[in-house]
């Protein structure tokens, strides 16, 4: 059976709602491990509150943060999926339906960058990335509401034939710039190479990888491990008031490029909102995250 406009619209709305009321399981596990390892008293207290806030949000269906972010979706369409209706409009209409029906209501965060006026709608909103999966008969939607606190500190610089030392020094420069500001412990996403836009997209996508997963490229796995140690050696700590836990993970990916090498660094705050589900060819919906 075809994957319909209605199914994509309903799932787009549902994923956003789920995202606002829970912290993903991998992130709660990461916070739990951080609490065990943390040596700073105040930081332990803040980490305990984070876990308490996550539990209360989930148990009572409350929003974890008042900043419901702006709608960011990644939609992957299988080349063997049969589609019916305007799937592109379905994502946007799904967010509109969420805004109209969600309880409690969302605050207005969609901002016109030219006037700073805020509402629920705006040019090119929701921010949707479209991708294709060869052979698959499903449509997958990943939803990542993006808030101001961590979104503000992303940065990109373009180098020429950089060494790994230069790339890592730049990552640390951006980490230092963000300091206490991005609701740490964060997930750091690093994108290397490709082109300006590709590096930014890679870094953003890297934040979506589950915490605790190992990078399949040994060079990157080693880089992630040493960068995580380096970020946590800064001492900014949970909520930036001191401690051993400034990041829960550093995730790195890359694309081949020319030799001019953009390095993009972005952050996701500790609540790490992220949900993902697939609509299969037989009409069933499978929640993945």
């Amino acid at each position, binding site marked *: 059976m075809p994957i319909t406009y209605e199914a994509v619209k309903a799932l787009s709305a549902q994923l956003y709602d789920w995202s606002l009321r829970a*912290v993903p399981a991998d992130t709660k596990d990461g916070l739990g491990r951080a609490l065990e390892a943390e040596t700073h*008293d*105040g930081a332990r*207290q*803040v980490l305990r*509150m*984070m876990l*308490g*806030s*996550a539990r*209360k*949000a989930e148990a*009572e269906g*409350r*929003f*974890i*943060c*008042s*900043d419901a972010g702006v709608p960011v979706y990644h939609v992957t369409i299988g080349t063997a999926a049969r589609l019916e209706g305007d799937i592109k409009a379905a994502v946007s209409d799904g967010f509109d339906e969420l805004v109209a029906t969600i309880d*409690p*209501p969302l*605050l*207005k965060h969609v901002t016109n960058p030219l006037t700073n006026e*805020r509402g629920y709608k705006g040019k090119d909103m929701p921010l949707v990335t479209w991708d294709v999966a060869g052979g698959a008969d499903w449509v997958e939607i990943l939803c990542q509401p993006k808030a*101001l*606190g961590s979104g*503000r500190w992303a940065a990109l610089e373009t180098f020429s034939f950089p060494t*790994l*030392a230069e790339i*890592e*020094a730049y990552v*640390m420069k951006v980490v*230092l710039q963000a*300091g*206490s*500001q991005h*609701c740490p412990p964060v997930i750091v996403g690093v994108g290397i190479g490709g082109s300006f836009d590709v590096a930014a997209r890679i870094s953003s996508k890297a934040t979506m990888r589950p915490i605790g997963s190992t990078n399949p490229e*040994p*060079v990157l796995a*080693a*880089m992630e*491990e*040493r*960068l995580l*140690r*380096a970020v946590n*050696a*800064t*001492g*900014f*700590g949970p*909520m*930036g*008031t*001191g401690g051993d836990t400034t990041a829960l993970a550093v995730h790195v990916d890359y694309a081949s490029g020319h030799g001019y090498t953009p390095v993009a660094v972005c952050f996701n*705050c*500790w*609540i790490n909102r992220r949900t993902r589900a697939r609509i299969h060819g037989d009409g069933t919906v499978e929640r993945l995250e």
Partner: protein
Amino acid sequence: MTSLHSIRMPMSREEARSLRAGDMVLLDGEIVITAGLPTVQRLVACAEEGRDPPIPLAGGSLMHLGSYSRDTADGGLEVLYMNPTTSTRFNALMPRLIRHFGLTAVGGKGGLDAACVEAMREVGCVYLSFLGGGAPLHSAAIEAVRDVAYPDLVAHYRLVRLAVRGLGPLTVGIDAQGNSLFDSLRHDAEARMPEILARLAADRAGAP
């Protein structure tokens, strides 16, 4: 160990001066909140023009907290949820407000800059760091909504006076002696950076 202080709001100047950066506090009483830059600009205009703000601030608090407030059927007001916003967005405006209104407590997340720290030291005011992503906890501490001003602004920009009970624990991020956890942590991280980069180089040398 960090110490936990229960504090009645508005905080007295003596109490503000007695707190130290790194202490943790629980708040009972009344606080004033907003997450709006246009709101803080209006409050600065009140100070500049010698007008009273729509909600009194003298000797009180101003927290960078966003909330969703709405009218209730019985003519009252309710806040559905509340959470901190980034305070450094208000750096340029806060010294004027801290001095003019003699605020004893400000707060939000991420701290304030050196000019604010200096104003806070002069006046006897502390900065309280709230948990970001703490909406379920912070919202549960709201007892009542006393007043909402600037209804022409979007909900989280409005100026709201709240009664709270057991709000926190909050970390004293900046004390009235001029100590800022945010400044000292940044300073320490910068000082540590050569050592951190050297460790990265050593790790790279042993990596695949």
